[in-house]
């Protein structure tokens, strides 16, 4: 269009979009952000009240629209999940995982399970296990804060180990990203100590000096470690090796304040996910506020991008259509088209490909915008998670501090990566909260004489250890008074949990498509998601995780309580089939989501098999860019947010450069 209104229109106000908006706004560029969801509230007390009242304290529980409504519960909808067809900006929530076969309760539409499969078949499809937010500030509202940099070999998985793909340019890409990692660390406000990372970075050849770039440091001192961390950091554990790699702990660089500053100092609310009550943890509302304060950035909330218009002759994007609404379940209140010189999609790895695929009315792009490669929506990835939990031999005082303060990063790379997925191990400070819904499950066990958590019965773990917490009490004890206090205390203060973030390979058949039948309240198609864990490479990562957990627990004298999940149920009634269970080499596994949705509009070296070039620019439309973890060619071995931020800063420079050249 000859006279566009803005320099840049951005779809999405999460961390990636907010960073680009801020970088352009501070350079005097005019930016408009379309945000599908609700505005950033004036303070977070309303979200906190919703969180406190929520029965299931899931990552999405504080945020609108409501994820659960007990007063609307019915026998076939016990959690009171809202019908996504009634919502203008619905999203997938982890409570929907169990309802994945019911589109009245689940936003995603899933294709039918292929027939005649056994539980160990690689062709079994699962529910996707991770979620996101559609609100001002995006999914960083509920991120953990882990701010790890990827390793050089994460960018060359194909060249170095023969799996997946390389990032475009491989090592060159990594080198170019290093200064942006530095900048991203400042934007987020990461607390960390570079000397604590020297051993790790030397092991993985981050640079000859073991340091991450010439200006590498953190803006705030490291967050102190927890007593839980210290229980793992004992010689019996740190003399273990796994596939030739040493096992040792690394304090996690974290996007939360170790010192008071623009944000408050972390007070250890143990609630980073779903919500930090005091905003000691970074979230994108910080950067979004900075962007708006430049005076050059506007945001329109409750505006759902619905179509991208492309010029038939130039293939340039010439506008983005949107639909507006006032209430989550109300009627649409308007529609329009916004125009700019450049366009940026920053709507995360489900809604971005959905928007591209919905934009299928352009004459020369019938398969959707930016999709000449056919790669839009493909290669959906997550860090598939294995959880292991146990009781330490001495009190570690779980449920205190940030949710995680250390990890085992030393197993993220090595020659074994030719044979199986690598992983990092997150050490949880939240006891069995994630693993077993404690403190409430163990409470019910000892008040009502149940044995869900195996502490109050006759269970024996695979290592032959009896699991009854107090052998002097009978099985299925029902306690009260001092004995209840002592028993619960003895259990809770010893609870430990490990989480393995297993690298999932890009699989073109793991994909987001448009549902042929399901729509939201605005009439827009909902995502249809096909998701498998198909490679033995990935499944061997689970086997390793299971073995390593047992070795670590044994070494530290802990008793393992990891529950063996039931066998997969692939066929039958919607409420009977399992969602995330699979079998492999005789083991029953369940996987969890890490919340790291990635890969659905990947960068690459070639127009034929990627959506974006290394500049995060569409191969098909020169004035269209995309940011967020959807650009990742592989999900790599670190939590994605710091890399998302670094890539967004890099994309902002590319867009500024292209605006200057125009």
């Amino acid at each position, binding site marked *: 269009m000859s006279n566009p209104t803005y320099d840049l229109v951005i779809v999405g106000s999460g961390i990636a979009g907010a960073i680009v908006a801020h970088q352009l706004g501070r350079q005097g560029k005019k930016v408009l952000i379309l945000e599908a969801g609700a505005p950033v509230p004036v303070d977070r007390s309303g979200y906190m009240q919703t969180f406190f009242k929520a029965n299931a304290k899931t990552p999405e529980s504080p945020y609108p629209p409501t994820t659960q409504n007990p007063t609307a519960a019915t026998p076939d909808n016990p959690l009171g999940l809202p019908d996504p067809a009634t919502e203008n900006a619905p999203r997938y929530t982890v409570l929907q995982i169990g309802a994945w076969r019911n589109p009245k309760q689940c936003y995603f539409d899933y294709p039918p399970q292929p027939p005649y499969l056994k539980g160990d078949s690689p062709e079994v499809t699962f529910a996707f296990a991770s979620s996101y937010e559609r609100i001002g500030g995006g999914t960083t509202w509920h991120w953990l804060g882990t701010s790890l940099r990827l390793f050089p070999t994460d960018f060359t998985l194909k060249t170095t180990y023969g799996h997946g793909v390389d990032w475009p340019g491989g090592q060159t890409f990594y080198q170019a990203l290093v200064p942006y990692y530095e900048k991203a660390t400042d934007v987020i406000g990461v607390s960390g100590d570079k000397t604590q990372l020297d051993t790790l970075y030397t092991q993985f050849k981050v640079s000859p000096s073991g340091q991450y770039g010439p200006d590498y440091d953190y803006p705030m001192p490291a967050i102190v470690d927890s007593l839980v961390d210290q229980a793992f950091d004992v010689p019996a554990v740190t003399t273990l090796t796994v596939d030739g790699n040493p096992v040792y702990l690394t304090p996690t660089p974290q996007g939360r304040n170790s010192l008071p500053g623009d944000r408050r100092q972390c*007070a250890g609310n143990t609630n980073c996910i779903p919500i930090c009550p005091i905003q000691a943890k970074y979230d994108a509302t910080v950067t979004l506020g900075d962007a708006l304060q430049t005076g050059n950035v506007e945001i329109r909330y409750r505006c759902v991008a619905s179509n991208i218009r492309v010029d038939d002759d130039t293939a340039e994007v010439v506008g983005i259509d949107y639909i507006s609404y006032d209430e989550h379940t109300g009627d649409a209140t308007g529609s329009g088209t916004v125009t700019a010189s450049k366009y940026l999609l920053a709507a995360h790895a489900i809604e971005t490909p959905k928007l591209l695929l919905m934009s299928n009315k352009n004459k020369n792009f019938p398969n959707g915008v930016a999709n000449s490669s056919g790669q839009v929506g493909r290669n959906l990835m997550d860090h598939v998670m294995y959880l292991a939990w146990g009781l330490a031999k001495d009190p570690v005082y779980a449920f205190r501090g940030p949710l995680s303060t250390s990890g085992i990063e030393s197993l993220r790379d090595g020659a074994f990566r030719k044979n199986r997925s690598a992983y990092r191990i997150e050490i949880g400070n939240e006891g069995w909260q994630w693993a077993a819904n404690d403190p409430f499950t163990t409470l019910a066990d000892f008040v009502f004489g149940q044995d869900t958590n195996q502490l109050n019965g006759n269970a024996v773990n695979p290592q032959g250890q009896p699991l009854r917490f107090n052998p002097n009490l009978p099985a299925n004890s029902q306690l009260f008074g*001092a004995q209840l206090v002592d028993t619960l205390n003895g259990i809770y203060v010893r609870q430990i949990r490990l989480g393995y973030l297993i690298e999932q390979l890009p699989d073109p058949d793991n994909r987001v498509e448009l549902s042929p039948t399901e729509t939201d309240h605005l009439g827009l198609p909902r995502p249809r998601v096909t998701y498998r864990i198909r490679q033995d490479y990935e499944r061997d990562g689970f086997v390793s995780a299971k073995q390593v957990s047992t070795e670590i627990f044994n070494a530290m004298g802990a008793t393992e309580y990891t529950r063996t999940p039931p066998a997969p149920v692939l066929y039958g009634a919607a409420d009977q089939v399992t969602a995330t269970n699979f079998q492999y080499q005789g083991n029953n596994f369940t996987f969890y989501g890490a919340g790291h949705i990635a890969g659905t509009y990947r960068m690459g070296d070639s127009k034929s098999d990627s959506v974006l070039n290394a500049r995060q620019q569409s191969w098909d439309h020169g004035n269209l860019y995309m940011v967020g973890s959807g650009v990742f060619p592989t999900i790599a071995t670190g939590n994605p947010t710091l890399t998302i931020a670094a890539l967004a800063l890099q994309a902002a420079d590319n867009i500024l450069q292209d605006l200057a050249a125009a």
Partner: protein
Amino acid sequence: MSDTMDNFIGLSAVLTGFASSILAPGLDPVNIKAEYLPFFTAKVAAESGNPQLVDSIFAKYASLAAQQLSDQQIGTAMLDPANGADFVLACRKLIFMWYSGAWPTLIPASASAPASTVSDLISAKSYTCGLAWQVMQSHPMGDSNYRYGYWNSQPPALNDYTGQQGA
């Protein structure tokens, strides 16, 4: 406090193992007891179909307390199956309510699953009042009164949380 509230707190202290001074402090701006007592009364009546059951529970407690029995003796007597299934279950649910701030529903064992419990939070306030957070020597998740770095050292003694005396 009324006699009913006295009995409610006294019984709750015996069954939870927390001191009355923790459940109902002298200065009590939170005043969760004022939420719990009517909620408990209504729930027990509705679930048992017996509007007199709560009164009989409190009366039994009052008579035991008047006999200068130990907490252990009172609790054992209150939870004696001879009191009847509904009576004992109401007492157990009282424990669960104080510890979790939620009201439990017990799901019996089935062919495919062992017995388990689900629960509904009573209010936003009741979540933060759950004794489970105190018995773990911590704070409700999302509602910490501690300061930066506390997680790096041991918490105060358990008795500081339960209000009980002694070792």
